[in-house]
């Protein structure tokens, strides 16, 4: 089996553009990942701030030896968003990742593409159709049970499609037409004052009992835990997973990537890997993957 690939997902949060560019410059020079995703996934209102800087960031990453993947928007409704998606699909020299099926309306038949965890790939039929259309990598939805991951990885191997899992980061759980950041600040989405930029890891949503539960990121809802599969690597590799996605959070992503690389290479065990993540200066609490959460007592049926 070939070495599993390590992939840095797109920044899902509204970071100041200089912070974002500096982060990716550091990734280009110092962070041990094979591929790096760029592009705005969550909110089209953020996109204009980054558009001018995107070419230089892409070039920098490529000079650093990274394969660059440009992501499309997750929820496409109005004309400007449709145009953005159509334009991205024509950028040369980079890979494209689709975050819904809209790009398939305009993407040239011979152009290959990656599929993000926000696209519903639950079964072999969907995987097979996307592979025939040009998909070369599929990051599976985080809620898939291990049995499904195994079935899809087997089918992916047969079709020559890389099977990727969401391996680190607050889990993307939902996308909406409504902006929750604007809502809790008493603002409308159209005049949001970009309040989501105040929370570079998203804003924690707790239960009325003070229990950690979710996080909001503009129109996106996420897990509050920074979920990681780093202690489930053996089971996932055994199931045929060949690629692992790290979703950027504030903190030391270089250390996070290094911990994953060492764990994937078998240089450290799961326990040590978790300890290394715990020391990576993260601002968000680490937690288990959804796959393992599904077996916690409260969820085993009949809370």
């Amino acid at each position: 089996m070939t070495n599993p690939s390590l992939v840095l997902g797109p920044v899902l949060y509204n970071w100041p553009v200089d912070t974002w560019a500096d982060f990716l410059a550091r990734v280009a020079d110092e962070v041990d990942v094979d591929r790096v995703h760029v592009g705005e996934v969550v909110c089209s209102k953020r996109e204009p701030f980054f558009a001018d800087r995107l070419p230089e960031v892409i070039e920098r990453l490529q000079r650093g030896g990274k394969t660059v993947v440009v992501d499309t928007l997750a929820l496409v409704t109005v004309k400007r968003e449709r145009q953005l998606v159509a334009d991205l699909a024509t950028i040369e020299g980079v890979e494209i990742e689709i975050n819904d099926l809209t790009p398939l309306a305009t993407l040239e038949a011979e152009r290959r593409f990656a599929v993000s965890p926000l696209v519903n790939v639950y079964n072999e039929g969907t995987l097979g159709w996307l592979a025939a259309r040009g998909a070369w990598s599929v990051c599976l939805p985080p809620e898939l049970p291990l049995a499904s991951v195994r079935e899809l990885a087997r089918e992916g191997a047969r079709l020559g499609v890389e099977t990727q899992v969401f391996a680190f980061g607050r889990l993307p759980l939902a996308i909406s037409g409504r902006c929750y950041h604007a809502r809790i600040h008493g603002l409308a989405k159209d005049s949001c004052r970009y309040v989501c930029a105040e929370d570079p890891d998203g804003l924690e949503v707790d239960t009325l009992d003070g229990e950690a539960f979710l996080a909001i990121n503009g129109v996106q809802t996420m897990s509050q835990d920074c979920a990681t599969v780093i202690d489930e690597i053996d089971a996932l590799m055994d199931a045929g997973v060949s690629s692992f996605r790290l979703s950027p959070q504030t903190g030391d992503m270089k250390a996070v990537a290094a911990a994953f690389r060492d764990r994937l290479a078998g240089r450290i065990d799961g326990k040590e890997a978790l300890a290394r993540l715990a020391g990576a200066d993260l601002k968000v609490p680490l937690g288990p993957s959804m796959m393992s959460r599904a077996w916690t007592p409260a969820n085993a049926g009949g809370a």
Partner: protein
Amino acid sequence: MNLAAALVRPELVCPAGTPAALRTAVEAGADAVYCGFRDETNARNFPGLNFSPQELTDSIRFAHDHGSKVLVAINTFPRAGAERLWQEAVAKAEGAGADAVILADLGLVAHAAAKHPKLRLHLSVQAAASNPDVIRFWAETFGIRRVVLPRVLSVPEIAAINAEIPCETEVFVFGGLCVMAEGRCSLSSHATGKSPNMNGVCSPPSHVLYKEEGEDLVAKLGGFTIDRTPKGVAAPYPTLCKGRFTAGDYAGHVFEDPVSLDAAQLIPPLIDAGVTAFKIEGRQRSRAYTQAVVAAFRKAIDDHMAGRPIAADMTRRLAEGQSTTAGAYKKTWR
């Protein structure tokens, strides 16, 4: 109202969780009824609901005898390794005489288009097709004839979509309101381990617990507190996205107030926006509810088609004490 729209009579599409509810909906004036099989292939997979193949066959005969159509929802995402169950559901629906199937999964749509070329295909709201490009993709690639639009669009956006697409649209006008793009939400999976997309249940009763704590009644889902009310006050059902939480300095309904959708007053502009069919949510609701809501919307559409105004309070009392909203149809909702 423009003249072209005045000629088109929209279709009223009503829910049926049981054969009895289907008969009730048909008799109350439904142009079409939607329902599902008694298994995980449909997005309202609750105990005591839904249809066996024989019940579906009998119900379709009843509906057709009364001039109504039956649409069969097979709108969860097939489980890897078990796609045959969903494929067989499509075959059974066609065999039973269904007027259309409502599908969400790309692979299942591709299968149905290839293996059941005569079967009319509708795209479920669970596919969240939210713009003309992706709708054209579904229509041109698979022959989708109607798309149920996700509840994230405003009326002008719906009009813009209809101006560009080669198929019909259906929109929700009443009932439970998803605040997330449908089929793209794992909040309930996160809290309960049961997935709306895979298991067809959201905030399922099996994972609900009401607990007295001091002066409060606490409503929990999968162990998480979703709401807290003083004892003696009716406790809301803990639907995750309608719960109360804290976020920064905010405390309250972070995602949505406990409201349901009522777009009865928007029927005229939605017809002008080119919408073909109006859908009522609630396959899990009682027959009495189904009867009342279907009759009210039958009258609303008939009044409008006859040039009469739609009475303002006609549907409000049906919300059973809940507040209502026009949701994303009004842009300020966002």
